[in-house]
């Protein structure tokens, strides 16, 4: 608790004059309750003299209550509103908030929404550094297509799920690449962390290793199996998943082959390292793929209104698959 420190106050007549100044200001501003401890806030210099103004400034009056006609008070500023806080202040405040509260802040008022819409601001840079693995942040290619810290952070929340994965798969330290271990007679899948049920969403999927005899990309509900014995096109083998086997270019759902994809004669084989973009349009209940930005046609339609997760299943030992969420795709 702050108290008057006697050692810092020289109680002479001139010091009192300085101490009395706040009372004058208090009267001018009609402050209802003057602070009792104001004298402790003013200290005297070595000579114990309060300063005297230069001729350029309003002369200091000896009588506390007199108001010289020449004095000009600064116009009283309107009370500061939370919506008028400067960007530097907002950025500092928002850095203390978890994501859930940032969402509420975005919906609170226009200026806060503006501050949080700057996708490379300190807020998103800080969260990016805090949430993403160092291996992802320092990889120059992994998230290169995502143009902002906020988008990279969002991709992290959609990445492969370390706790929703076959036991023969593991997620590499970058958090975005699944690695299948060399286990015989096993098919192993993984789901993304976050499912979607409305809107249009795009996921970039790259098979970084050999395909083997089965390499399926697609979508799955929460209940689709992620492991089975043998080398099976597991994704698409039941009514809970839809898959595109890149090895033979066949679409699968509910155990049935839906035909060749892309829908053309002799569709080209997938080249390892090509980027496949999976687009799920929940509003029209369709899913389709692009390969190296080329639209390949509708793959699945009449998809039921369920929460859907991006998924892959693999059989080849030490193969790897990377998935990066990109949000709503650019409509060309």
């Amino acid at each position, binding site marked *: 608790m702050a108290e008057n420190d006697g050692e810092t106050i020289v109680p002479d007549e001139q010091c009192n004059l300085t101490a009395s100044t706040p009372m004058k200001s208090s009267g001018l501003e009609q402050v209802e309750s003057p602070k009792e401890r*104001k004298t402790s*806030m003013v200290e005297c210099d*070595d000579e114990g003299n309060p*300063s005297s*103004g230069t001729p350029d400034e309003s002369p200091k009056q000896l009588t506390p209550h007199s108001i010289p006609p020449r*004095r000009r008070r600064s116009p009283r500023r309107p009370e500061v509103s939370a919506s008028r806080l400067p960007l530097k202040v907002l950025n500092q405040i928002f850095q203390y*908030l978890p994501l859930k*509260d940032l969402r509420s802040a975005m919906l*609170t008022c*226009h200026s806060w929404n503006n501050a949080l819409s700057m996708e490379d601001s300190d807020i998103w840079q800080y969260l990016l550094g805090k949430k993403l693995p160092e291996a992802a942040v320092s990889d120059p290619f992994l998230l290169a297509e995502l143009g902002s810290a906020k988008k990279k952070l969002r991709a992290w929340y959609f990445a492969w799920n370390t706790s929703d994965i076959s036991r023969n798969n593991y997620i590499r330290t970058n958090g975005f690449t699944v690695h299948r271990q060399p286990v015989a007679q096993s098919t192993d899948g993984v789901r993304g962390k976050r499912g979607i049920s409305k809107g249009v969403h795009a996921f970039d999927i790259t098979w970084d290793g050999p395909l083997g005899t089965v390499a399926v990309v697609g979508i799955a509900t929460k209940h689709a199996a992620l492991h089975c014995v043998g080398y099976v096109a597991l994704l698409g083998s039941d009514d809970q998943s839809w898959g595109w086997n890149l090895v033979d270019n066949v679409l699968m759902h509910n155990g049935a082959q839906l035909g060749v994809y892309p829908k053309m004669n002799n569709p080209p084989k997938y080249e390892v390292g090509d980027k496949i973009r999976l687009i799920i349009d929940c509003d029209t209940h369709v899913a389709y793929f692009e390969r190296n930005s080329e639209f390949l046609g509708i793959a699945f339609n009449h998809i039921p209104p369920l929460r859907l997760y991006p998924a892959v299943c693999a059989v080849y030992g030490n193969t790897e698959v990377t998935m990066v969420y990109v949000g709503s795709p650019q409509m060309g």
Partner: protein
Amino acid sequence: MSSEEQDVKIVTSDDVEFIVSPKIANQSKLLADFVVLNQREPIPLKNVTSEIFKKVIEWCEYHAEDIPKPPDNVEEKRTDDIGEWDVEFLKVDKGTLFELVLAATYLDIKGLFNVTCKSIANSIKGKSPEEIRAVFNLGNETNME
């Protein structure tokens, strides 16, 4: 009183004069430069009222002997570490709290800036947008411009 460093003279936006000791002024990066310069002319603070400046001085007096905190990029971004004295000090109306954070920004007093921002953040945590608007009195339509 140190013979090397002189008090600095401040005039707030409402024309109130203050004499501030170096141990207080040096907590403000803005004012610390004037201590070094041995500035004799009063320093006008056009953005700070006397009422707010008194509170700033009160905070600086209490924290005059604080050991400097580690840099921001090392510090964990937590808001549950506001000291007991600061908690009481910041029990003011929201308008005063905002004026304090603006004064801390203008005067460049890092500790006061951080603690006021944390206090405001604590008023946001766990609340819906409607609740935040109510807490900060953002009901006017003009605030939604």
